[in-house]
């Protein structure tokens, strides 16, 4: 992938991610997040991980986002009222996050190995084939366990959101 | 035999918790213990080395085994435990008079006795330590549930303080264990003593210091003594008797059993420090005792002060001094037990122990007044009681360390301070005795009842024990002689190398 496209998608991802934070309206936040995730899916694809990219679109930009919007609408949330912003918390948050980001930058600056180009691939099969082989071969047991986890989660959701019968 | 000695109070305690008649079961158990101890004493009197040994390996990988055995010193301690335990259970209030959990009360007493017995009979470092810890928990319960005054604070204070002391001790013991070459490591005390005699135990000063301070906290060595007066003032009488009389002596026993024999040369390193601290015990705490305004806290402080004399004997580290220390452990255990028992009775009757409120109690309560006087005299070291020969031995042992030329040695200076302590102890004991028992009887106390006849034998029994030891101290000297010789042999064989 050309650097131009990469930077465009990276800008979309980060830009809409920032928009998620900045928007006061939760609906707008959720939609920004969806766009951010779409950009991320594009980045995945650019790394030749097409399967993961598609899953990302399906699960996050699709299912999870729908869920978010659904809940927002269910709860009938208005735009956040202006509350007294605690300056200390604001500064603390910005400083910590900024420090973290700068640490990341510093670490990457001292990671010369990462400055090489990605090695070329030669895929005999499509990506999904290899993933399927690995998933159902080596990672079969965790895969089943994940299935159980999702089952438990869905039952849990039902129990949690069931209205109390008076 | 020894296992039986440990098991009887444990079984009795469990039986009481399950609903057996508390007082009778407990009394039967301690009486059986007393008889067994006397049998053991007669059988093994004066025999060198460890007798009546029994051993069961538990975790061979760690070299851990349950092993018991006695020599002269531990026999002396077991005798003390049996005598004071018997008296303590005897003077414990009747179960029906206890407001809360009478069964638990007696079970706690028995657990303390079992713990002390186990600690004194163990030949394995692990059990030696663990049995003592076993006895701390019931002490906490006894003070916390049935104590008087600010009992909750006192219970927490003593427990946390002693637990910290035990923890320091544990560090010291573990450091000692790991300082031994790996192939030779063992928890068995006799094996360790053999190692020490062969010079295989590194004589690291700081390890001994840790052990000394750990034991020191348990014995209320100055300046780690502030737990004692408060705890003894709050504890119910039998608990105070057992703790001050027996359990506190675990630390001293530990020094004589583990500290000195295993690290005689490291011990020499800290002699001057120990001398300074023990003079603090005698003079500083002694003076603080004079200023006490309550009978129970005065006795608590006095028991701290007398630890100084025992430390003096240990610091002297020669035959007379060590024997004197062993004798004084025994003698002080008995005398302080009597004093605390009587104080408990007085508290039951008057509800107050402040000197300004008491006075002239000997008139309505002649028996208590008389026996308190005897015990007070015993505690200030008058002849006829066991404390006197013990203190004399300590002094002579101290002065046997001649100074350089005409100058006094550090030992002798400490000895002179300790002699002055005799004056101090006479001052506070007699002031206390006079304030509480002599003089004009306050109007409130005129009609008080003296001790009932069924409770008297316990006091008489303790007094008789201390007087027998006072009239024939040689019996006890001969009892601990092999042990003392053993300790000193380690020292001489090491310094020869």
């Amino acid at each position, binding site marked *: 992938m050309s650097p131009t496209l990469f930077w465009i998608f990276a800008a979309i991802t980060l830009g809409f991610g920032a928009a998620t934070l900045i928007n006061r309206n939760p609906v707008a936040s959720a939609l920004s997040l969806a766009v951010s995730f779409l950009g991320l899916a594009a980045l995945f694809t650019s790394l030749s991980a097409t399967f993961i990219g598609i*899953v990302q679109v399906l699960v996050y930009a699709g299912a999870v986002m729908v869920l978010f919007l659904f809940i927002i609408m269910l709860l009938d949330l208005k735009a956040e009222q202006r509350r007294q912003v605690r300056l200390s918390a604001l500064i603390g948050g910005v400083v910590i996050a900024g420090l973290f980001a700068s640490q990341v930058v510093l670490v990457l600056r001292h990671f010369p190995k990462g400055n090489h180009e990605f090695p070329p691939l030669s895929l005999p099969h499509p990506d999904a084939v290899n993933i399927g082989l690995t998933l159902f071969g080596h990672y079969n047991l965790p895969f089943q366990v994940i299935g159980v986890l999702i089952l438990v989660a869905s039952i849990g959701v039902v129990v949690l959101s069931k*209205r109390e019968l008076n | 035999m020894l296992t039986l000695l440990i098991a009887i109070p444990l079984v009795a305690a469990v039986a009481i918790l399950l609903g057996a008649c508390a007082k009778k079961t407990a009394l039967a158990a301690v009486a059986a213990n007393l008889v067994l101890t006397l049998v053991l004493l007669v059988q093994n009197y004066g025999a060198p080395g460890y007798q009546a040994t029994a051993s069961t390996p538990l975790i061979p990988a760690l070299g851990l085994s349950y092993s018991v055995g006695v020599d002269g010193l531990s026999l002396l301690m077991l005798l003390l435990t049996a005598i004071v335990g018997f008296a303590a259970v005897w003077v414990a209030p009747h179960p029906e008079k206890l407001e809360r959990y009478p069964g638990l009360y007696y079970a706690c007493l028995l657990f303390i006795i079992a713990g002390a017995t186990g600690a004194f009979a163990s030949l394995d470092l692990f059990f030696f330590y663990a049995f003592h810890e076993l006895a701390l928990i019931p002490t906490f319960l006894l003070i916390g549930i049935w104590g008087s005054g600010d009992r909750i604070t006192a219970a927490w204070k003593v427990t946390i303080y002693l637990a910290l002391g035990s923890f320091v001790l544990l560090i010291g013991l573990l450091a000692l264990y790991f300082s031994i070459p790996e192939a030779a490591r063992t928890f068995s005390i006799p094996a360790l003593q053999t190692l020490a005699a062969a010079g295989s135990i590194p004589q690291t000063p700081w390890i001994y210091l840790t052990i000394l301070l750990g034991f020191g906290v348990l014995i209320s060595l100055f300046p780690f003594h502030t737990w004692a007066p408060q705890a003894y003032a709050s504890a119910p009488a039998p608990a105070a008797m057992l703790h001050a009389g027996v359990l506190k002596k675990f630390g001293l026993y530990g020094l004589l059993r583990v500290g000195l024999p295993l690290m005689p040369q490291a011990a020499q390193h800290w002699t001057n420090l120990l001398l300074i601290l023990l003079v603090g015990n005698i003079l500083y705490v002694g003076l603080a005792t004079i200023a006490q305004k309550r009978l129970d806290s005065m006795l608590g402080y006095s028991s701290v002060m007398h630890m100084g004399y025992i430390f003096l004997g240990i610091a002297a580290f020669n035959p007379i001094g060590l024997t004197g220390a062993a004798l004084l452990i025994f003698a002080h255990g008995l005398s302080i037990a009597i004093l605390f028992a009587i104080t408990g009775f007085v508290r039951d009757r008057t509800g107050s122990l402040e000197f300004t409120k008491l006075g002239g109690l000997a008139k309505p309560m002649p028996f208590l007044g008389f026996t308190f006087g005897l015990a007070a005299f015993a505690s200030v070291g008058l002849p006829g009681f066991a404390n006197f020969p013990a203190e004399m031995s300590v002094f002579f042992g101290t002065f046997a360390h001649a100074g350089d030329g005409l100058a006094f040695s550090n030992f002798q200076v400490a000895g002179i301070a300790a002699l002055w302590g005799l004056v101090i102890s006479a001052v506070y004991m007699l002031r206390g005795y006079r304030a509480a028992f002599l003089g004009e009887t306050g109007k409130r106390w005129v009609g008080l009842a003296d001790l009932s006849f069924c409770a008297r034998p316990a006091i008489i029994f303790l007094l008789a024990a201390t007087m027998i030891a006072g009239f024939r101290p040689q019996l006890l000297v001969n009892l601990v002689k092999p042990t003392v010789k053993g300790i000193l042999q380690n020292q001489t064989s090491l310094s020869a190398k």
Partner: protein
Amino acid sequence: MVTLNDYLLVSGLLFSLGFAGVLLRRNILVIFMGLEMMLNAANLSLVAFSRFGVANGLPDYNGQMLVFFVITVAAAEVAVGLAIIVALYRAKQTTHVEDLTSLKF
């Protein structure tokens, strides 16, 4: 030329953004979104490393497997988390974190 470090930089910044969201926003739903962003940022670096560690011409699929599992678990987590938020909202009529302080001393 796009290098591994570029991806990692994007991943790190996205993570920081998500973290800032968790720290700064009061709406619990948005905080939740910030969490999702952090997860995805981690996913991005995982995939990037997977693509970087090529052997025999194939990417390291172990990394992609991990991403797969993360996505799955995250989905389950979102479902449960949102259900909890709904329950909370029913109990307290708010989604504002500063009103949800019952977990203190």
